[in-house]
């Protein structure tokens, strides 16, 4: 007959081993999650600096450029930090594009005491993700005035999560950007390898999602057609209103 003492001892060892193993698996899970979160965070920080720099220092935006006709074809010459006063207008609000980021810029001519703004987003519906300020020289004809450019960045983005019940796919959209925004959602069945659109019936997964406030979510569902051959995925693309050149893509195994 087994003694109670032996049984309790074994039980304690088992509980200890199970606790250590569970703790380890949880640590691995946490570390994986944290790494992913850090990657997104550092991407956001880097993108703010990059877009802000590009607004001031890219030839298509505020940077002053000259065609150097000594070369054939002519070369474009420019100096970082020298901006063209004639380029400071709302027409430039889309001069550089990067993912879900949009921007406003305030140019202050210190010598003239004049401030001009370029409005890429409405500050009443967006909060600022970050901003950068650059000292510049503003070229006005033959004159160079000391000035400053402050670029504020906001974002329009969403994260989707998916769950499936039979042939119904539930899509939950979280507005992960800093602006209230509507979103266009498009769902298509595609070949998992080539990405080509499946020639058979497609799901009714195209939605125009109304305004979602920042950090809030909205759920909706769509129904998959019956008997889809294996080797196909459901490709879901989410495009924020106003930035048609950017979309976030998900592939769901069906």
């Amino acid at each position, binding site marked *: 007959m087994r003694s109670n003492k032996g049984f309790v001892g074994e039980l304690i060892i088992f509980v200890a081993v199970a606790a250590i193993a569970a703790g380890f698996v949880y640590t691995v899970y946490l570390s994986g999650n944290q790494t992913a979160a850090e990657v997104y965070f550092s991407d956001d920080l880097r993108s703010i600096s990059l877009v802000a720099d590009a607004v001031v220092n890219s030839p298509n935006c505020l*940077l002053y450029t000259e065609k150097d006709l000594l070369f054939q074809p002519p070369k474009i010459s420019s100096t970082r930090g020298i901006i063209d006063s004639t380029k400071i207008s709302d027409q430039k609000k889309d001069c550089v594009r990067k993912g879900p980021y949009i921007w406003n810029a305030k140019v202050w001519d210190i010598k003239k005491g004049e401030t001009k703004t370029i409005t890429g987003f409405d500050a009443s519906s967006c909060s600022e993700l970050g901003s950068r300020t650059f000292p510049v020289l503003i070229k006005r004809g033959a004159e160079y005035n000391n000035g400053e450019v402050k670029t504020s960045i906001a974002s329009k983005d969403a994260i989707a999560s998916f769950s499936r019940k039979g042939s119904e796919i539930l899509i939950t959209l979280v507005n992960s950007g800093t602006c209230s925004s509507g979103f266009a959602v498009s769902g298509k069945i595609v070949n998992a390898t080539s990405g080509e659109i499946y020639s058979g019936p497609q799901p009714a997964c195209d939605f125009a999602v109304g305004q979602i406030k920042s950090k809030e979510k909205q759920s909706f569902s769509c129904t998959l057609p019956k008997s889809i051959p294996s080797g196909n995925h459901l490709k879901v693309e989410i495009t924020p209103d106003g930035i048609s050149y950017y979309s976030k893509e998900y592939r769901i195994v069906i």
Partner: protein
Amino acid sequence: MFNRRGQVGEGLSFLLKLLLFMFITGAAVYVFNNVALSDIRAQNSARNLGTGFDSLALSSSEITLEINCPSGVRFVVDGPKITARVTSEIGEGFASYSYMHEQNAILPQKKILDCGLSNKIELSKSYDAAGVPTLGAVQ
């Protein structure tokens, strides 16, 4: 009294638990390496290529950059978006990156860049006579 049979039994039982613990630990490390790390690798690769494209937008002159193409990675460059896929024993690592570009830039058409074929990717920016920039990516 000294019970050798009981001691052997307890020893074996402890060994089995140790094996169970090592199995769970090994499985966790294996899953982490294959699932999480392949995703991280895909993210890093996509970001590495993407930052190359990002820097093209800041250049006012024609420029060519050489970017490392890490083995096991397959990129798809399609307009302003780069996706990277990394194959692993369990599933696949996947990441996408939206690079910075000028509004009027002519972007690359959909193109697959397989790092199994070459370990370098050449990014370029050129201007036409009207000053419109064209971006390119070749292996």
